């Protein structure tokens, strides 16, 4: 049973090697990549079931005498994260496979893209399964290195610019992580989570606090918690759509996962509630205010991503079962939704040639399917009642109220305001990109301006003219690839008004349905999150599972 544990790391790595070797046979390469990730998903689903039924699963790699060696651990939290992340990675992979040939050649050069993507997946899995700090570091490095390559795919000016900031920030955080590991090792003589729990508690409180703050700083940079979040909205939107989607869904969540682990397993007695609550509040508010100020939708979503990290940090800060449960549920929800939204934006890019609100318009008439595909996850993100975003937020706010105290109530208020402002941001996208008539470009007006204007003038301004004006304009768009991307230089060759390839649409539909499905299974999932949170808070289950009797 515990031999399943290395598979989520090994399979993508083997797949990556195989894919790299097969770089002359794209079809086989794709099959290899998809098979590897599909198997990881299966294994992850199995692990979720196994951990829920039998408690944490531990594998000491190489079967060394027990406190030596490297431990891989899957408890309920890591199994759930593993499942959600593998579902998301698989969907994004299928999405990228569905892209039109020309775009695929440019945006996701096949010989590099699939192997790198698989390594990213392996890194994420490794980080979730790591049973010690150094293995966590290695997992981070794997996924970061893959992300450097994916972010700068194609090496255009914009991506090199964004990439250099991203690489440097990540390098800095990795260096800090190493400092933290050195300090932890110097203080305790181990890096194993389970052993650390006991040994860190015996340290003088000042030393332990320094270690905790070091680790929290490192993971906050990865998770983009304010004030360490400025790198994110600048670097993510420039990447190709599938890459941005998987980054937004997974990378910051690995940071959140590491924060949860640090707070629950390593330092269970020092919740730092006030500090983390302030960080959560400022992250939420600053992030969402940044989102409102954006016209480029990808950028806006990157800001909402930062903002919603605040919710998860809020849950962690409370250091109660309800708080952790809310944070875990919210993480699972947010991975899915944020990825879905970025994939939908990929479709928008294909369909309309831009993701800038100043250029988009009339999308709801142009493609009602796209409208629905955007609307459902957008409302889900904003937390409109039937959806999982609402359930997650209610869980967190409820945990906040249970905790009590001025700061907790302030955060409850902040959470509600953030949720409303998210709704506002999403409504803005909806109004401007989907509902208002297409704003024709200056150069397009030269050819079709007259008829568009006539049609607008004939009918009462506003909604009635939407369809006809859009039709006229879109007719033009199909003939003349005029509209282009603002941010993404790589996409400039995209002609506009093209049909969306069905595999991309189908993948997005599936992910939207998964997002809705989280609502359907919200009861069991929330129960699972609560059990995971109980495990975490107790901490004993983890230690008991990892370390044999007598080596604690």
């Amino acid at each position, binding site marked *: 049973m515990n031999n399943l544990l290395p598979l989520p790391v090994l399979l993508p790595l083997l797949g990556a090697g195989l894919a790299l070797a097969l770089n002359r046979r794209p079809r086989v390469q794709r099959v290899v990549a998809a098979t590897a990730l599909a198997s990881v998903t299966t294994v992850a689903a199995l692990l979720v079931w196994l951990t829920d039924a039998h408690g944490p699963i531990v594998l000491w790699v190489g079967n060394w005498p027990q406190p030596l060696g490297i431990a891989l651990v899957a408890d309920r939290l890591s199994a759930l994260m593993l499942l959600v992340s593998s579902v998301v990675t698989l969907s994004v992979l299928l999405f990228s496979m569905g892209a039109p040939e020309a775009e695929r050649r440019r945006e996701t050069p096949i010989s590099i893209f699939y192997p790198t993507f698989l390594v990213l997946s392996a890194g994420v899995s490794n980080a979730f399964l790591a049973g010690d700090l150094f293995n966590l570091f290695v997992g981070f490095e794997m996924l970061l290195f893959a992300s450097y390559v994916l972010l700068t795919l194609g090496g255009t000016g914009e991506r090199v610019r964004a990439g250099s900031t991203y690489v440097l920030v990540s390098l800095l955080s990795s260096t800090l992580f190493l400092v933290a590991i050195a300090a932890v090792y110097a203080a305790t003589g181990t890096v194993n989570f389970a052993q650390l729990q006991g040994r860190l508690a015996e340290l003088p409180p000042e030393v332990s606090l320094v270690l905790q703050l070091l680790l929290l700083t490192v993971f906050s940079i990865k998770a983009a918690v304010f004030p360490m979040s400025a790198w994110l909205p600048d670097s993510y939107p420039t990447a190709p759509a599938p890459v941005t989607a998987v980054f937004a869904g997974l990378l910051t969540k690995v940071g959140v996962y590491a924060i949860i682990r640090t707070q629950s397993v390593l330092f269970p007695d020092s919740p730092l509630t006030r500090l983390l609550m302030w960080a959560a509040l400022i992250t939420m508010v600053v992030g969402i205010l940044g989102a409102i100020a954006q016209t480029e939708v990808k950028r806006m979503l990157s800001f909402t991503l930062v903002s919603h990290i605040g919710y998860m940090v809020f849950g962690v800060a409370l250091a109660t079962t309800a708080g952790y449960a809310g944070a875990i549920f919210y993480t699972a929800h947010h991975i899915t939704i944020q990825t879905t939204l970025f994939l939908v934006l990929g479709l928008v890019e294909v369909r309309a040639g831009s993701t800038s609100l100043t250029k988009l318009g009339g999308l709801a008439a142009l493609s009602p399917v796209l409208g629905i595909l955007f609307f459902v996850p957008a409302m889900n993100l904003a937390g409109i009642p039937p959806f999982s975003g609402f359930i997650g937020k209610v869980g967190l706010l409820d945990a906040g109220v249970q905790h009590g105290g001025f700061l907790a109530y302030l955060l409850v208020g902040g959470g509600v305001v953030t949720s409303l402002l998210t709704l506002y941001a999403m409504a803005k996208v909806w109004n401007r990109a989907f509902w208002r008539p297409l704003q024709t470009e*200056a*150069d397009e007006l030269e050819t079709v301006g007259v008829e568009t204007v006539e049609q607008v003038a004939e009918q009462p301004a506003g909604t009635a003219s939407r369809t006809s004006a859009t039709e006229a304009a879109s007719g033009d768009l199909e003939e003349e690839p005029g509209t282009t991307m603002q941010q993404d230089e790589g996409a400039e060759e995209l002609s506009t008004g093209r049909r969306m390839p069905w595999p991309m649409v189908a993948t997005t539909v599936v992910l939207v349905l998964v997002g809705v499905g989280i609502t359907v299974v919200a009861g069991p999932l929330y129960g699972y999150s609560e059990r995971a949170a109980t495990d975490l808070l107790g901490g004993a289950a983890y230690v008991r599972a990892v370390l044999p009797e007598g080596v604690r």
Partner: protein
Amino acid sequence: MSPNLTLALVAGVLVAAGVYLVLERSLTRILVGVLLASNGVNVLFLVASGAAGGAPITGVTEPQDMSDPLPQAFVLTAIVITLAVTAFLLTLAYRSFQIAGNDEVSDDVEDSAIRRLALDDETSGSYEPDDEGHPDEEGQATGEQEGERVTADPESSDADPTGYEGETEQEPEPETPAETPKAPVAARAPGEPPPGYLTGARRTPEEDGS
């Protein structure tokens, strides 16, 4: 165990020099900074590993005389990762040099766009003019700006959405399309490729128009 002061000082100096260099603009200097800092951290691991001893091989050294092998394994991993990162950063710097003629890390797009808007005293692209054509509290101001813009470049007025606005009587409407193309152009300024260089035909209409 008492930590080795010399090693700690060396680590501190290396990291400090690294941090100083990382704050530079040029990617090459940053790279040197990263190298120094990571070597400083590697030295820190030596401090963490305690007193130096013999090679940790059973049969060669007595267990009590061995140095701790684990931190050395950490350092080895870290060195390998740093090597890969160095190669990647060098590539990035070279690519940046190819594209922009220098290897400087450029400003945040958002920062430069906002700075430009603030200097020109304009609203950002996310400011939503009233779609229905009712002048809001900003209506006067936008109207005036609009007038200026039309007189400033009358020859492009047919290509300008102003004509659109004139017929539909939506006063603030063209504010958005007329103004926003500037933002990305300004945002491109630092460290951005000269149009057409290496990117071939990938040019935006903004660049063509400006």
